[in-house]
């Protein structure tokens, strides 16, 4: 289980504090990266994989976020689909993650470091089973 760390942002209007967990930033980054063409998924450790096999979705797999009071940095490990230019995919992921975090949290993203650990080929992708049609209306 990852460490639970709060990020506190002081409101300039003195109407209170905005507090959210570090995992939130990681989840935003993961979802932003997943939207990029050519990204198959995040590459995590064996322990993180065990949780997924047990049916628990882990949106912070393969991602590490370092936050300060106004800035943050993201380290991610991704799996890229074969056929896409890796540098182009990485660049798009960096831009998407930066925009998503800055828009949703107001934190300035100073670094998005990406590690491509593996490539997935078309034959390895799981085949989606067709959904059974409803027999009754």
């Amino acid at each position, binding site marked *: 289980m990852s460490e639970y760390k709060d990020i506190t942002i002081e409101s300039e209007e003195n109407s209170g504090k905005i507090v959210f967990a570090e995992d939130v930033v990681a989840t935003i980054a993961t979802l932003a990266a997943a939207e990029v063409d050519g990204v198959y998924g995040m590459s995590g450790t064996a322990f993180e994989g065990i949780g997924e096999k047990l049916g628990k979705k882990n949106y912070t797999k393969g991602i590490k976020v370092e936050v300060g009071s106004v800035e943050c940095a993201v380290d991610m490990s991704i799996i890229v689909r074969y*056929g*896409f230019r*890796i*540098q182009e995919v990485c*660049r798009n992921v960096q831009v998407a993650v930066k925009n998503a975090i800055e828009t949703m949290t107001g934190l300035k993203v100073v670094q*998005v*470091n990406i*590690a*491509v*650990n593996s490539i997935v080929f078309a034959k390895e992708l799981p085949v989606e089973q067709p959904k059974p049609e409803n027999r009754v209306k």
Partner: protein
Amino acid sequence: MNRTVGILSGILAFLTIMFGTGLLLLAIGWPVTPERLQVMAFEVRRMPAVLFLVLAALIYMSIGVIVLYGMIWNRLNRRTSALLEKNALGETAVSFTALKEIAEQTLKNRSDVTKYKTKVYAAGSSIRIEVRAITSPTVSLLELTHSLQEEIGTAIRTICGTEVGSIDVTVDQAELPPRRT
């Protein structure tokens, strides 16, 4: 999470080595002198249980040493096993495993290559790929090797945007089946 697991693994490995050392000292006795070793050798003949104790101790110590060695090796190789590129937004690293998979996919797509093995190394500021392949008996080896170098180089250049320093290809041809008489 990774850091915590790494630290726990290191502590466990260290404790395993200490446990094994303790078992060994229990079997031999302290201090370890040549006379004590002779006594232990005699005891082993008289009481095989001592031998099992010594073997168990050596196994525990070996496991601990192997785990620690693996952790140190991985740590040292981490930054030398990827293609790094920096840009304004951060750093991108393409692991050698991914490069190896690209090369192997190229080999997999060829019908004239039956078995293959690839390795990727860092060579100065670029990379070196070693390919060992077994081919069908009737293939022209010269044409095959040139073709493999070109295809793998093109695949990596297209997908990763980087030039490969050298691609060393070693090819063995499969033996012809024995003639039926």
